[in-house]
């Protein structure tokens, strides 16, 4: 989504400061998996607000439908069946962009302004600047961005940046019938999460906790998990997400070093020529060869 903005905290492939005079409150979406009933109202609201209709796919035999995120489905419910102490637990997780404080997608993106992070924490794709290389997919620790087969641009959850910018809550929050989805300032969401976690602990979930992974600087989509010690139970939610060291090498210090070495080689050549002169054939040798030829 593109909105003229004065509160850009980070901008892809940009080495100078972006417009950032306006400071906004850091926001967060809180997903309380313990009160989610898996109704998919959030999925429907996402389609409706963003006016997207994914292709009707195939039922993979479980409730997950569509079975994965796509360029047109920016959030999907993932259902995991887990047995513990002789009890079946149905762990339901709303998957989508986590809006990392340190976004791997933005770090990897080579197109200026194709990915921005606003000061409120929302990480947004500006598809009109996207060149379709897929580097963001390589950078993302959560496997979120999807390339569209129609236009070769990448798409993902915008955290309804257009709605949030005008003081509305994201569409999924508005549609949730149980209050499992909450939206507000990140501080308020943490406070609310603590209440939920205390309640869960009271009810025997001793490992209940907040998922706000520090490996990516924290996220602006957080989960309350009954098993915060084992996030993988929730259909592979990464336990310790972080930007891959390979991506950091690729996009980190190696680039200025390579630039400096290449510039040094080019200048070195110039100054070598200027100081040493060209490597020409000796005059005596030329005369000698000429004599031989006669």
């Amino acid at each position: 989504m593109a909105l003229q903005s004065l509160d850009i905290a980070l901008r892809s492939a940009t080495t100078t400061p972006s417009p950032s005079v306006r400071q906004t409150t850091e926001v967060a979406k809180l997903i309380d998996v313990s009160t989610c009933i898996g109704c998919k109202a959030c999925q429907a609201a996402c389609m409706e607000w963003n006016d997207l209709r994914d292709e009707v796919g195939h039922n993979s035999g479980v409730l997950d439908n569509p079975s994965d995120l796509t360029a047109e489905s920016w959030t999907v419910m993932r259902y995991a069946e887990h047995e513990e102490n002789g009890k079946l637990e149905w762990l339901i997780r709303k998957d989508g962009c986590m809006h990392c404080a340190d976004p791997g997608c933005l770090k990897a993106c080579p197109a200026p302004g194709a990915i921005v992070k606003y000061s409120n924490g929302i990480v947004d794709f500006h598809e009109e600047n996207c060149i379709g290389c897929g580097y963001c997919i390589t950078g993302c620790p959560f496997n979120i961005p999807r390339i569209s087969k129609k236009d070769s641009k990448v798409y993902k959850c915008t955290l309804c940046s257009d709605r949030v910018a005008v003081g509305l809550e994201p569409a999924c929050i508005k549609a949730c019938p149980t209050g499992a989805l909450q939206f507000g300032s990140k501080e308020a969401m943490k406070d609310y999460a603590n209440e939920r976690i205390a309640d869960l602990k009271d009810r025997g979930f001793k490992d209940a906790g907040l998922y706000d992974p520090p490996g990516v600087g924290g996220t602006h989509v957080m989960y309350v998990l009954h098993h915060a010690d084992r996030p993988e139970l929730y259909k592979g939610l990464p336990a310790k997400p972080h930007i891959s060291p390979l991506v950091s090498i690729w996009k980190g210090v190696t680039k200025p070093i390579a630039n400096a070495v290449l510039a040094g080689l080019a200048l070195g050549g110039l100054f070598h020529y200027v100081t040493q002169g060209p490597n020409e054939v000796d005059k005596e040798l030329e005369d000698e060869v000429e004599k031989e030829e006669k």
Partner: protein
Amino acid sequence: MANNSNELQRYSAQERANHWLVAVCFVLLALSGLAFFHPWFFPLTGLFGGGTWARILHPYIGLLMTISFLGLFFRFSGSNSLTATDKEWLGNLGKLVNGDPHSMPEQGKHNAGQKVMFWVQSICMLLLLISGLMIWRSWFNLPVELVRFAVVVHAATAAVMIGFIFVHIYAAIWVKGTLRAMLRGTVPRAWAKQHHRAWYRQVTGK
């Protein structure tokens, strides 16, 4: 054509055409690749019709370069095998660079520097091809761990290749008469005797 007795044929028309096809591909790939390498160079995508066009064209030009490089490889791999004298030449490289060409051992058709260039470029080409295919999302969709590895290999190898090409281009500018060998195919006899004496003996019988 060596229609002048003062000149020796060094590269055939096919060899020259092959070399310059690779060179054109390289320049296009370096310009579009650098655009993705660092934000400073992103404006170079304008030369290709914008970022999206640069992204679309880069891998296809890469395939063309691989195919044409293969031609160069088979034409020149025989004359680029490293020998014991090459080690001595490389050891004395500092003297040559500092303006003393007389302490260098006799060289065949290619000197040790050219041979090292040939093999470095060949290895780079192979690495760029494999890693490039791995990150080509229009056609392939590999596990992300492999793609992450391939992007690092691709960027690092490309930087090495560009660096060596800078040396290659500078050597052609610095050693007078070299550029002409690749443009027109011929070199003066004296040039051959000075820079590639063993090759000079071989082709002239002197």
